[in-house]
């Protein structure tokens, strides 16, 4: 099947193609589309929150609905927007950067996506089925146990299913990077984005099980009468906080490390310089990831763990500032002496450096345990984590999208629209969140449905809301840019940015087999090396031959649907035992799919050498 043949088919065929695809580039597009949708949804929820807080004692939302809104905003943005968008970029780019034709387990790749999507849809079904979860995205017990209705049940099942998808994705990337690097692509020649994908996958592998366990315990407490977190029956609610943050803190690095990778690649490309201190950058990444597991209790300074625990976790947290500082200075040093081009991708990157530095510094301030007694659970914390997550992760995703859009979609995003959306979003972002540092210390705790009159909090909140709307408009213009570009955008060449890494050596968008011949890598920035010292083209490591490709499959979709059905069963069997049937049917569907997958041989197919030669003409 050639690409041309695939394009001629109708709309339904295209839908079927995406439902069954195991191609990492198409799965990447699915991740980006779904993640983008949830990002807009989470953004809408954020605007509702800010409208409610535009003036004191406002009644735009009821107290209960407000709590649902903050819970869903946080949960959606972290699990259903930021992570999938990053997984999308990793899927699209990482295999290209290491010279692979696909990921190690294409079938699992598809399964990971569909599990995430069905989990996310399940979670959002709660809006229409009696109310969304309302115990905060951290879902602290016992509030989460006492929460009436099924909102928190949807949180548990939705995250459990989508979390499994993420875990599968992480393992897949790990194996891919370990086993599928092209000849000559040693670890210390991998681009930083691939490195951070690798380290992030390790984090996913070790952090997500803690969440899975926590959610299981919560599930049994809520649905099957257990009492792990119920103090009156001998349980302990602080355990939930430990489990959640043993996952939750590394999660922050799961989000930010890939963004660091994106920035590293972009800065190096648009400064026309090799990344300064590459080795230090790699080890700083690993060190941040390692320390990321040692600091979870800094989210719990006020829990009453005692001065010894607080002191240890305070110092461990401050230590993270060191490798992060190394990264900031290495980026600056990369630009120093370079020839810097400033376009949209680079604008997001340049905006990231001071914004994230502020977020990192408030992070160190928060690490000082006694100071945290004041910051904790106030708008200071809200400001801090939005500075790192928006100023770091969202800026990173947007930079990455501008940078790799030509590679993924074959068209260059419009620069004018890109710059307009950047400035609106950037100004809006600082307007929204900078003032919140002060609001927090002025006595505004987070998750407050209303703030009272005459507490000096009016102006700050008004400014914050105005900023939020600017961000919203900036985001919308980015969406318009995508639509405009896909209709009228400038076609991209294989290497529109004078790139350095391997993905720019193949056409934009790449053929579905990526590399006609597996490339031979001669050093860091392989394409740059060939452009400056070689003959301008990557040397193949093998003669042209048949390429083996995996079969498409609908099984991942059906399997995920089975878990989705079972999810409803678990949630509603509390009300009526008839719903147990849904559990059996759902799990049954999944098991049958697994059985088919195990028993049926998938041979894949070959692209013949002759076809490859013909396509070259």
């Amino acid at each position, binding site marked *: 099947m050639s690409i041309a043949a695939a394009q001629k088919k109708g709309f339904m065929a295209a839908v079927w193609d995406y439902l069954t695809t195991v191609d990492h580039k198409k799965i990447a597009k699915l991740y980006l589309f779904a993640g983008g949708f949830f990002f807009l949804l989470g953004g809408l929820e954020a605007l509702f929150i800010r409208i409610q807080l535009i003036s004191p004692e406002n009644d735009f939302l009821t107290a209960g609905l407000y709590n649902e809104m903050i819970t869903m905003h946080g949960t959606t943005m972290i699990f259903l927007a930021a992570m999938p968008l990053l997984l999308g970029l990793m899927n699209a780019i990482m295999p290209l950067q290491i010279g692979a034709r696909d990921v190690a387990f294409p079938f699992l790749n598809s399964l990971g996506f569909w599990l995430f999507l069905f989990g996310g849809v399940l979670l959002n079904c709660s809006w229409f089925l009696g109310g969304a979860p309302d115990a905060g995205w951290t879902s602290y017990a016992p509030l989460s146990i006492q929460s009436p209705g099924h909102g928190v049940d949807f949180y548990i099942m939705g995250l459990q299913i989508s979390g499994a998808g993420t875990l599968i994705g992480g393992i897949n990337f790990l194996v891919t990077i370990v086993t599928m690097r092209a000849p000559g692509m040693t670890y210390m020649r991998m681009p930083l984005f691939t490195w951070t994908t690798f380290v992030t996958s390790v984090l996913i592998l070790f952090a997500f099980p803690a969440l899975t366990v926590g959610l299981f315990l919560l599930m049994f407490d809520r649905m099957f009468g257990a009492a792990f977190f119920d103090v009156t029956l001998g349980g302990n609610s602080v355990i939930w906080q430990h489990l959640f943050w043993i996952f939750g803190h590394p999660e922050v690095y799961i989000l930010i490390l890939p963004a660091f990778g994106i920035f590293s690649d972009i800065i190096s490309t648009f400064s026309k310089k090799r990344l300064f201190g590459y080795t230090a950058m790699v080890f700083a990444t690993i060190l941040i990831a390692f320390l990321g597991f040692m600091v979870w209790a800094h989210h719990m300074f*006020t829990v009453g763990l005692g001065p010894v625990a607080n002191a240890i976790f305070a110092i461990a947290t401050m230590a993270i500032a060191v490798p992060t500082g190394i990264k900031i200075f290495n980026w600056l040093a990369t630009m120093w002496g370079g020839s810097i081009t400033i376009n949209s991708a680079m604008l997001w990157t340049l905006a990231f450096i001071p914004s994230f530095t502020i977020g990192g510094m408030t992070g160190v301030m928060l690490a000082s345990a006694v100071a945290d007694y004041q910051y904790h659970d106030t708008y200071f914390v809200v400001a801090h984590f939005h500075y790192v997550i928006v100023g770091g992760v969202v800026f990173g995703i947007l930079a990455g999208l501008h940078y790799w859009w030509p590679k993924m979609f074959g068209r260059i995003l419009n620069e004018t629209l890109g710059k307009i959306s950047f400035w609106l979003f950037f100004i809006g972002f600082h307007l929204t969140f900078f003032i919140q540092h002060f609001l927090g210390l002025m006595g505004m705790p987070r998750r407050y449905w209303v703030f009272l009159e005459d*507490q000096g909090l009016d102006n700050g909140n008004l400014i914050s809301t105005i900023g939020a709307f600017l961000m919203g408009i900036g985001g919308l213009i980015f969406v318009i840019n995508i639509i405009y570009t896909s209709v009228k955008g400038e076609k991209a060449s294989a290497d529109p940015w004078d790139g350095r890494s391997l993905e720019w050596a193949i056409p934009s968008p790449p053929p579905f087999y990526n590399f006609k011949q597996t490339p031979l890598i001669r050093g860091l920035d392989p394409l740059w090396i060939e452009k400056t010292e070689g003959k301008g083209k990557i040397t193949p490591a093998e003669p042209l031959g048949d390429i083996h490709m995996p079969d498409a499959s609908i099984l991942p979709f059906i399997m995920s649907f089975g878990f989705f059905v079972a999810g409803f069963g678990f949630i509603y069997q509390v009300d009526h035992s008839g719903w147990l049937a849904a559990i059996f049917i759902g799990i049954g569907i999944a098991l049958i799919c697994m059985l088919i997958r195990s028993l049926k041989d998938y041979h894949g197919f070959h692209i013949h050498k002759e076809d490859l030669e013909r396509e070259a003409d």
Partner: protein
Amino acid sequence: MIGWMGKRKPLFLFGMLALLLAGCGKENLTAFEPKGYGAESSMNLIILSIIIMAFVFAIVLLVYVITLVRFRKKKGQEDFIPKQVEGNKTLETVWTVIPIILVLILAVPTVAATFDLADKSEAQDGINVEVTGNQYWWHFNYEGDEVQTSQDLYIPTGERVYLNMISSDVIHSLWVPSISGKMDVNPENVNTMYLQAHEEGVYWGKCAELCGPSHSLMDFKVVAVSPEEYEQWISDMQSVDPEAEPEDAVAQDGKALFEEKSCVACHAIGSSPNATGPNLTNFGDRSKIAGYLEPTEENLVEWLMDPEAIKPGNKMTGNYPEVSEEEAKQIANYLLQLKPSDISPESAGN
């Protein structure tokens, strides 16, 4: 560092910054204007960390701006290929070691303050108050004195008042920004912190851990009075006669209704260490109704007739027979004249 203003420069900066931040927010609420021991400890660290961080930020910004000005691609040099630098050992060592030193400068006082604030060695001899967090109100039991209040916590200035805190339902967090940082109020264990106010006054307290729909309305007050006044207040509270008949007839009817409508089942007047509902002994002195409304009869009537509208998710709604507006007024009249002491938030002065 020596030069302009010599050795006093850091001190001067310190003072300027404190002055600048003090203008932020409402007095007796904002953490920027510390009026207690804990809040001061926190503020010292906040200012120290801001200074260190501002220093780092200035350097980053300086390098950043110079880089962008000097090294943007120049017209006519589009083909210029910069030198491909691998790294620089000296530079990289410098920006590893300096941050380590800066972090240490912050870490040492942090650890010291953490242990200092956790010191409970004098708790035995000090004033101990048992605090119970409830959805959405606070219960204060002055240990050994057989005095209880809710929502208004009375403390003497200059002394450490130890709060032994536990929750009756979900996790809360007690925060009085002007006097001290916060500590969680867990259902499973007693957490102890202390409040030490330097000046008399009425300080805002807040719940800082999401505890349900009315989380944002779980405000309370800390009434700091002089030690003599505190003694006076305790003895006034101890000598309250819960059975005392009010003077005017409306309030007398109110008292009868208070029992008839089963208010008394949850709300104690007089000493009662364990309470299902807020203790109302000094209700007439309370600075707020339902934690945040002005203590007027009108507000109280509204609260009695439809608590759900005022505090969503509260435990009072539906737990007593309906009261008419007339009846609510009578009960309000009775409750608002419960003023056992001359020492009140009003006298503590704002």
